[in-house]
């Protein structure tokens, strides 16, 4: 096997035989089962909690609430320490737990949770951007949590702004200005593996088993709330069964840790799928875009104003807003660019990272508006994009990493694969859009490689394999660096007590950052061997050779994001579809997705990531969205009423391709992939619907109902 080959998936055998142990499959002796107690409203003032009937039930061990925690109740969060371990005073969203029951069996826990009586008074809640932003709206966050914050009296957590060029001059220069507002719905990760959290006392510390992307970040959070040294908090993190950003940060780990320490027994909390809807979601957004251009199609400015609806606690959502919106003007050269984006708190499920990290929302708006802008000056939408697209080295955002790929090549390839210049079959429409995402802005990954006496190798790393195949790719890199057969490399991952520090598994970083760390560790091994064969180098006592490597992406405190992009993910998406005018149903005949990957270390896995991301993008494009009632409750909790793409919803043909110019910062010129093929799906589909029907829809999803309604309105307009 060499670099680029489709090496077999690490951990594949376990996954097809049912032997792979996910957290839900691990049981601890003498464990207690936890069930959360919630209120049937978004926001309620918590009164007396009567646990007597629950505690009388055989098997109930305890009913845990804020009163059982140190006072004031510890708070945590990756950006702001705003989230209490369990609700204090009032609930902030539908699903916010006021108590947690621990019992000997899952049945007993469920039954006891139903017997806990919570007195509460329903309070006014805000669940939409508009409601959260009106004067005198109920405040989601207690202003005392935001000292010295001018926005503390509002529901705007933060406002992010970046700008370059002279907007006034650019506005004067523009010969056409196209301005529209777009809406992106609230959707959820829907990993097929629901979150599971387990904790157990471990000597004078605690051990936690969890479905987590960032075990080391979690370790830090837990050490903070538990007031323990890092060395006393050990995170066991088996490969998650899908994560997509929803398993990045602490959710109920602090709660189960406190409960385990109180009970002095292991406790476990297995969320239902419905409860995962109340634990993680993507950020909803409303984005106004003003695009200025000249009649010849030259873009002069892009002006974006976005409100992202985050939830009741910030989680990582404000970073999602700041980083996702930042590159919202897209991969184009302008004379002036401006992005203002607000993270707006609401009494809804805390939103968090989700594949694309704030970019899909703004991409839907800006790329859709670019199609409209092209049509406004009678220019082909692909031609307009190619005319303005940044070329390698262009400082398209003046204070960031310049364009680092041959993006034109990817864009032209996608246009060619959809047959953009060829006549369309009757009744078909085509759409085209580009996607870009900043890679990690900071990073730190360590890897350790241990060469055993027989020459086989163990690779220790804190990257999590969420399905993206890090296990395979990192083993391939080690095998290649040391000239080993892949079968002689074993990956060791998922335990902070065993593997060295890694900052996080996110932003499509692991192939680049951890990959470089593995390369560095292998280099150190080779240096220790100094050209000698292993047996000679080890000498008569045998033993092993240990190499340690690290890769860093340093912060830049003067940069708007705290650091420039390590690389850019770039993708071109094109679709051809038809619309059933009687039902509004969209049939995608061909979906083309082309990503600039630098260098594919495993071509099959790149294809899997790109096609998988494209299909996930079709979810929010065509069918997915939360529905809320007036009390701020989610009406479509669970798999019956919230649909994600199935094998029956696929484009008739998916054509994926990759551009490899070896121009990335990772091993062998690799860049990160895995998110970008999702970004431009909605805008490409929306443009194709317009092309096929003449109807412009600026709200997602493009559900049959919404498309049909728009078609009816078109007919009504034509009849006038």
């Amino acid at each position, binding site marked *: 096997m060499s670099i680029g080959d489709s090496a077999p998936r690490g951990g594949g*055998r376990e996954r097809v035989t049912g032997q792979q142990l996910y957290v839900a499959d691990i049981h601890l002796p003498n464990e207690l089962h936890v069930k959360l107690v919630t209120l049937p409203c978004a926001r309620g003032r918590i009164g007396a909690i009567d646990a007597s009937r629950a505690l009388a039930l055989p098997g109930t061990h305890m009913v845990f609430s804020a009163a059982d925690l140190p006072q004031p109740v510890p708070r945590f969060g990756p950006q702001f320490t705003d989230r209490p371990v369990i609700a204090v005073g009032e609930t902030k969203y539908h699903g916010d737990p006021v108590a947690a029951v621990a019992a000997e069996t899952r049945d007993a826990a469920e039954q006891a949770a139903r017997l806990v009586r919570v007195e509460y008074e329903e309070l006014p809640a805000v669940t939409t951007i508009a409601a959260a932003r009106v004067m005198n709206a109920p405040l989601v966050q207690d202003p005392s949590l935001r000292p010295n914050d001018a926005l503390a009296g509002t529901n705007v957590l933060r406002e992010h702004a970046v700008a370059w060029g002279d907007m006034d001059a650019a506005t004067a220069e523009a010969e056409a200005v196209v301005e529209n507002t777009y809406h992106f719905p609230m959707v959820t990760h829907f*990993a097929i593996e629901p979150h599971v959290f387990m904790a157990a006392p471990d000597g004078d510390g605690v051990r936690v088993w969890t479905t987590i992307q960032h075990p080391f970040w979690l370790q830090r959070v837990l050490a903070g709330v538990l007031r323990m040294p890092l060395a006393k908090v050990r995170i066991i993190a088996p490969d998650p069964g*899908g994560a997509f950003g929803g398993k990045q940060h602490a959710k109920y780990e602090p709660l189960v840790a406190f409960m385990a320490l109180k009970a002095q027994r292991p406790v476990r909390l*297995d969320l239902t799928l419905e409860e995962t809807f109340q634990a993680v979601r993507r950020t909803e957004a409303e984005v106004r875009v003003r695009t200025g251009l000249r009649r010849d199609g030259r873009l002069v400015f892009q002006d974006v104003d976005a409100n992202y609806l985050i939830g009741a606690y910030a989680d990582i959502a404000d970073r999602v807003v700041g980083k996702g919106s930042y590159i919202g003007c897209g991969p184009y050269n302008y004379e002036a660019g401006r992005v203002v984006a607000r993270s707006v708190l609401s009494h809804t499920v805390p939103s968090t990272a989700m594949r694309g990290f704030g970019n899909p929302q703004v991409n839907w708006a800006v790329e859709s508006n670019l199609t409209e802008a092209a049509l406004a000056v009678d220019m082909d939408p692909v031609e307009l994009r190619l005319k303005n697209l940044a070329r390698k080295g262009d400082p398209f955002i003046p204070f960031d990493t310049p364009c680092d790929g041959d993006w034109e090549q990817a864009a032209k390839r996608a246009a060619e694969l959809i047959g953009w210049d060829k006549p369309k079959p009757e009744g078909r429409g085509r759409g085209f859009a580009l996607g870009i995402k900043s890679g990690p802005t900071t990073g730190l990954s360590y890897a350790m490689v241990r060469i055993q006496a027989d020459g086989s190798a163990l690779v220790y790393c804190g990257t999590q394999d969420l399905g993206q195949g890090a296990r395979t790719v990192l083993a391939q890199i080690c095998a290649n660096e040391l000239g080993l057969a892949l079968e002689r490399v074993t990956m060791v991952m998922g335990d902070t007590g065993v593997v060295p520090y890694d900052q996080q598994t996110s932003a499509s970083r692991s192939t680049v950052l951890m990959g470089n760390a593995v390369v560095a560790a292998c280099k150190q091994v080779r240096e220790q061997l100094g050209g000698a064969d292993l047996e000679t180098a080890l000498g008569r006592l045998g033993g092993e050779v240990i190499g340690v490597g690290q890769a860093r992406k340093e912060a830049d405190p003067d940069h708007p994001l705290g650091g420039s992009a390590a690389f850019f993910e770039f993708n071109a998406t094109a679709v051809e579809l038809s619309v059933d005018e009687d039902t509004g149903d969209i049939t995608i005949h061909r979906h083309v997705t082309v990503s600039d990957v630098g260098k594919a270390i495993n071509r099959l896995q790149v294809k*899997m990531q790109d096609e998988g991301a494209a299909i996930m993008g079709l979810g929010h494009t065509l069918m997915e969205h939360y529905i809320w009632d007036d009390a701020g409750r989610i009406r479509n909790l669970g*798999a019956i009423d919230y649909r994600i793409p199935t*094998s029956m919803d696929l484009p008739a043909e998916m054509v994926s391709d990759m551009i490899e110019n070896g121009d990335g910062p990772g091993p062998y010129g690799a860049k990160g992939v895995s998110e970008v093929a999702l970004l431009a799906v909605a805008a490409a589909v929306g443009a194709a619907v317009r092309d096929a029907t003449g109807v412009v829809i600026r709200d997602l999803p493009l559900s049959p109902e919404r498309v049909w309604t728009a078609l009816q309105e078109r007919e009504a307009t034509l009849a006038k």
Partner: protein
Amino acid sequence: MIPINLRLNGELRAISVEPHHTLLDVLRDDLDLTGTKECCLVGECGACTVRLNGRIVDSCLVLAVEADGGEVETVESLADPSDRSALSPLQQAFLSHGAVQCGFCIPGQLMAADDLLRHVAHPTRPEIEEGLAGNLCRCGCYYQIIDAVEATAAGAAGEQK
């Protein structure tokens, strides 16, 4: 508790179960066969798909007592029964076609695909899409899964020749 008998992956098992426990509960919690996965619990995701008396079912929708006297096959039965280390052609095809990302849905996908191939030796792509429509994959490996099923059917035809 109610005593029931199962022929589970070829072996007779006599156990006592709670009357309200599903076949999924019993497989995972009482029999420690955790290859069968729990996700939606409403028969929509297919992660808990097993074969009961020759038909695939969502084991989250079947009470364990309803399976009394029945024959149950789970993902753990798919590898070559004479040599558990040898993967079946279907399992092998899932790996070689890149059908496995996170893997959580895969036991259910395999059981559904295995059932489809038992009923239709050479399914068309639309037949495969329909046959697997009850099994969600959020990683979006559908094309690769369909390719794997198609290749398995083609491989089986090759052997017969």
